[in-house]
């Protein structure tokens, strides 16, 4: 269940379009958007060290000017571990892998101001752990939709839709106890 980009062919398609249409400026605009700083948002989490099954109160304060569009806040758990793999030539090996344990995303109203959400780490899932070779980790994350400028054509919109239609916002790491 690891998170992976699902549009491996997109860069080549985009390059072909760019050649045909002289879209260098478009690529530049896309790149600037991708590398833009995270949006402004004050994210507060209480408690920072919850127990499994204990409610986590998340408070978000959005700026009065230009609040992020399509804001979402979520409780996300991930695991890092060594996984066996076999490549196309039949060679076997082991690779450090990150996978998703849990993702509970909630929509937040677009208006500026404060919003509250309650989350719970399900008690059947692992607590936070950082070990010699593996880890379980938890965080409260935020993300929002990209706001497309007028004039960015449907190609750009399509690529953003597939590849990165959500930009990451502030994150608060929490330590979940057993």
């Amino acid at each position, binding site marked *: 269940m690891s998170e992976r980009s699902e549009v491996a062919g997109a860069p080549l398609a985009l390059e072909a379009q760019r050649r045909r249409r002289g879209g260098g400026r478009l690529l530049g605009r896309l790149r600037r958007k991708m590398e833009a700083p995270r949006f402004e948002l004050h994210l507060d989490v209480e408690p920072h060290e919850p127990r499994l099954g204990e409610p986590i109160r998340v408070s978000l304060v959005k700026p009065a000017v230009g609040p992020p569009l399509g804001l979402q806040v979520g409780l996300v758990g991930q695991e890092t*571990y*060594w996984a066996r793999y076999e490549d196309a030539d039949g060679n076997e090996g082991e690779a450090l892998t990150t996978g998703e344990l849990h993702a509970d995303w909630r929509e937040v109203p677009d208006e500026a101001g404060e919003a509250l959400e309650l989350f719970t780490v399900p008690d059947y899932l*692992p607590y936070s*752990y950082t*070990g010699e*070779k593996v880890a379980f980790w938890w965080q409260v994350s935020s993300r929002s939709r990209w706001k497309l400028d007028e004039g960015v054509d449907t190609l750009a919109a399509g690529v953003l839709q597939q590849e990165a239609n959500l930009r990451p916002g502030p994150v608060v790491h929490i330590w979940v106890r*057993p």
Partner: protein
Amino acid sequence: MLELTLDRAVVAPGKEVTGTVAITSSGPCRALSVALRFVERSARLGVGAEVLAELDRGDLVAGQRYRFALTLPPEALPETGTGNLQLFWEVRTWADRRLAGDPDARAPIQVIRLRAR
């Protein structure tokens, strides 16, 4: 070559894990040890915490039995895991042999999950 028996397989943090190591066949050995350890198991094995004790030095003699008592750390974490990796406590005993594989025996223990009120 080694047989491991625990008195109890369910233990609270801070309490003793006790048991017996029995030698089932004689053989060369440099040291016989036992360890209580927190294992991280995925495609690679890791050890998070370990409590060690040496039971004897010298060759193994069939029929010998060794009692042991190891204290589980007060902060010992309970077992947990997913389909990809598991964290758990186990007792392992092994005979350290020169230029040869070390015969061993293992037994998992379950740590009681304590909840603060």
